[in-house]
């Protein structure tokens, strides 16, 4: 049965390596190595893969700058990194091997790999990065005007809304992905053959939508943080 907290696969000193951490490491290594290898192959005249990636990137950049009204590639990269990382982590969770390979740890049967965002720690980390990053960018851009926002009678309410943003970011992603895991698990307990496939397709869609929502919300909160009132 699925548990709310991730299982510890092995320890390095006091640091627990959990199965969700292993899965996130997999996605990270994939993104980093792909970027390094692809970076060396970039040419003036693009080949097929480069053309495809450029179309995707430019499409997202146009969509993003229409949405926020900011024309800055660096800020776009900050928001788009969330999208790529969440999307790939969610889609890695549907690969064969996730939830089907067991190992023994302290006489207990545990999964070797598990979808990254079915762990509240991971989603909370992303929410914190998103909200704190937006606030730091606002502080750099607006300086004193940004601090003034918190220094009036409604300042406490502003502070509370920042905290509730972190909570809603982390719980939304966590709930959606965990619900998908439980859905696939309970369907495969009822009818193990062929029946879970439509639900896995649904999970691909949900993974994309959740990544898109995280991307859009991060961009909008960032726009609110760095714009003058």
């Amino acid at each position, binding site marked *: 049965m699925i548990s709310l907290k991730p299982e510890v696969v092995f320890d390095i000193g006091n640091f627990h390596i959990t199965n969700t951490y292993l899965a996130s490491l997999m996605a990270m290594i994939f993104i980093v190595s792909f970027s390094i290898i692809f970076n060396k192959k970039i040419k003036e005249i693009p080949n097929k893969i480069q053309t495809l990636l450029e179309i995707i990137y430019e499409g997202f950049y146009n969509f993003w700058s229409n949405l926020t009204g900011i024309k800055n590639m660096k800020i776009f990269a900050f928001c788009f990194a969330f999208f790529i990382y969440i999307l790939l982590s969610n889609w890695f969770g549907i690969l064969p091997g996730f939830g089907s390979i067991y190992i023994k740890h302290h006489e207990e049967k545990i999964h070797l790999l598990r979808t990254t965002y079915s762990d509240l720690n991971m989603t909370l980390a992303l929410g914190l990065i998103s909200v704190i990053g937006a606030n730091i960018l606002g502080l750099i851009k607006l300086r004193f005007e940004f601090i003034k926002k918190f220094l009036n009678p409604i300042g406490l309410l502003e502070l509370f809304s920042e905290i509730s943003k972190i909570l809603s970011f982390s719980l*939304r992603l966590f709930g959606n992905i965990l619900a998908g895991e439980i859905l696939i698990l309970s369907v495969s307990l009822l009818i193990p053959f062929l029946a879970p496939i439509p639900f896995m397709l649904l999970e691909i869609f949900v993974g994309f939508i959740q990544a898109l929502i995280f991307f*859009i919300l991060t961009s909008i909160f960032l726009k609110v943080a760095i714009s003058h009132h």
Partner: protein
Amino acid sequence: MAPDIFRLIIPGLTITLGVIFPAIAISKIGTEAMKAIGRNPEASSKIQTAMILAIAFAEAIAIYVLVIALILKFA
């Protein structure tokens, strides 16, 4: 009644009562967005973005309920 029965009933009731209002909200958002697209098909891409965003906010409430139900069930 035995306390075991409550352990089964209460998470079920939590999710049942909790998803009614997000469902109403999402249906309202979807209806209005479709009406807007029907009236003005050129603006459909802008409406879709706003619709997905609004649905995400409404859905978040259902997700909170789901998390609470899961905690009641498993923890």
